[in-house]
């Protein structure tokens, strides 16, 4: 295997082989990424850089490799979304309310990664408490997408909420990154940054130590440059965790193993309700092209129906804020995080700490959530939304009687400009129209880059799988990756900036 011209061009899989094969040391590789991260500060992809920690971990990894004790991800530098609590390293969730919170504990997912030998480059920027689809709600400023349209200097959003992780992967600032996905927060940013993002089955990755947004929807997953890398990273993020009551008691397969099995004989469902009015024709065209590629590779295309699709977004915008309003009650200025100065009494302390610490979108969602749970409104909003969830999940059950995976667009459009969609919150919410159904039903979904718009911006396709069946969506995504031959890269304009 030839080394790439730059160490930061390695895929996770190739870096693993090179480092474990002693062609490159972890220190060399990590140093290259530390440099790339520092050079990319104009992107604002990281909230906290941890170069010393990275090099320390890299050196320790090299020692293990020299002693023949390499673990599966030994010496491979990753970026971590700042929603994962990291022991001794500031964790913000993109919010001012966490202030200088330094967790005295490590999330299960990141602990799994360190136990597998991975190296931490830093914590990535994100929408505040993962509430957003453009990374513009972060208390630490927006992240810029490494991609720009052809012949344009306009800064675009990287999607959200895992916008910093998506930008870091897309801009080759790390080998891979972790993300979390509550309504599309892995898959949507992956799609608009030309990267691969996988949301596993709910419960596949432990939520322990991940700052909660909406507990019944939140799920961690990998963000990578290739489908193989997503398979590798997921294998080492996932675990059966006795500390999370909703973590699945189901063994974790080796996702890399079946990746190249192809799609011959696979039944691909095309849900007709995902053709939406007003979507740019490029979205439908790419979707049709994806189906043709799969058909050409021997898959069977089946039209299916998910009749309650149009209700998914409004259902989500009841359930997620309701859970968030309760999950975010702990940010009260008493035990950690921001506390308002000079409070008259305890209520004043709560009200001002929270008004000062939470950004606008978070405050809005807490208020929506408080209202839909309050006396007299619970049945009309929350209870009804949970019934809709049952119907949405049932739609998928029906569809999966006729197919093995579903193919859909990942987003209703490519990356948009900073500030373009911040006036009406509902307009922003529509970015998750294709991804949110999956969270409501707890299913796995993957976004894979499949082409470029006429303006030269990446677009993705999404596969949705049956519960527990990440293996099949990875296999299907790998097939699309092969067929599309997608290898476009953003030009590193930020280095000149």
């Amino acid at each position, binding site marked *: 295997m030839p080394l790439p011209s730059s160490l930061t061009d390695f895929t996770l899989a190739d870096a693993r082989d090179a480092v474990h094969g002693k062609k490159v040391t972890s220190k060399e590789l990590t140093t290259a990424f530390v440099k790339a991260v520092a050079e990319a500060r104009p992107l604002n992809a990281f909230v906290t850089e941890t170069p010393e920690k990275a090099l320390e971990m890299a050196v320790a990894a090299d020692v293990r490799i020299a002693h023949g004790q390499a673990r599966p991800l030994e010496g491979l530098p990753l970026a971590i979304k700042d929603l994962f609590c990291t022991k001794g390293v500031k964790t913000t969730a993109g919010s001012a309310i966490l202030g200088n919170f330094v967790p005295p504990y490590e999330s299960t997912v990141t602990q799994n990664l360190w136990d597998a030998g991975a190296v931490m480059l830093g914590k990535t920027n994100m929408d505040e408490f993962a509430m957003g689809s453009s990374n513009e709600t972060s208390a630490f400023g927006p992240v810029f997408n490494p991609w720009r349209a052809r012949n344009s200097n306009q800064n675009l959003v990287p999607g959200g909420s895992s916008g910093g992780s998506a930008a870091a992967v897309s801009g080759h600032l790390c080998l891979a990154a972790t993300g979390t996905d509550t309504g599309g927060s892995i898959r949507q940013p992956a799609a608009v940054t030309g990267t691969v993002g996988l949301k596993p089955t709910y419960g596949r990755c432990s939520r322990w130590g991940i700052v909660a947004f909406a507990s019944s929807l939140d799920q961690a997953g990998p963000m990578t440059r290739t489908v193989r890398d997503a398979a590798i990273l997921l294998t080492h993020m996932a675990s059966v965790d006795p500390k999370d009551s909703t973590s699945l008691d189901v063994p974790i397969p080796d996702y890399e193993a079946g990746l190249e099995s192809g799609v011959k004989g696979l039944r691909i469902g095309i849900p007709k309700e995902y053709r939406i009015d007003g979507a740019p024709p490029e979205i439908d065209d790419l979707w049709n092209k994806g189906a043709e590629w799969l058909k050409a590779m021997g898959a069977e295309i089946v039209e299916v129906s998910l009749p309650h699709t149009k209700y998914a977004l409004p259902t989500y915008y009841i359930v997620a804020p309701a859970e968030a309003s309760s999950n975010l009650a702990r940010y009260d200025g008493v035990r950690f995080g921001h506390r308002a100065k000079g409070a008259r009494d305890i209520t004043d302390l709560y009200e001002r700490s929270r008004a000062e610490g939470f950004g606008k979108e978070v405050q809005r969602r807490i208020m929506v959530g408080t209202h839909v749970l309050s006396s007299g409104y619970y049945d009309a909003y929350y209870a*009804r939304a949970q019934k809709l969830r049952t119907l949405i999940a049932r739609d998928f059950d029906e569809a999966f009687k006729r197919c093995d995976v579903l193919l859909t667009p990942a987003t209703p459009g490519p990356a948009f400009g900073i500030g373009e969609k911040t006036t009406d919150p509902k307009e922003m919410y529509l970015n998750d129209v294709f991804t949110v159904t999956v969270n409501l039903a707890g299913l796995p979904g993957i976004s894979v880059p499949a082409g470029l718009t006429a303006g030269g911006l990446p677009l993705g396709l999404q596969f949705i799988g049956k519960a527990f069946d990440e293996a099949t969506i990875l296999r299907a995504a790998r097939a699309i990756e092969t067929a599309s031959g997608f290898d476009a890269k953003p030009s590193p304009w930020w280095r000149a900036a």
Partner: protein
Amino acid sequence: MSVDKDTVRRIAKLSRIALDEARVAPMVDELNGIFAWVQQLNEVDVTGVAPMTSVVEQRLKMRDDVVTDGDAADALMANAPEGEDHFFVVPKVVE
């Protein structure tokens, strides 16, 4: 089921978020925009449909009754805005 200014003030109070009077009217509009939009769920007949309680189909995990945690007062207090002698300190609460 739209909200008015008083309802918004009540929601803010319940949420423990200080809402300047100047922000009340815009918040009424923002919330009503969202509530009007989610009203479309009323089109669906949900008679006899059970609300989803969990997307995970498995038994609730149970732990054994052993002490495995705690005894970490220093770590617990490390992020506290105000503390004394391992107590969290808040403005006087009247019962």
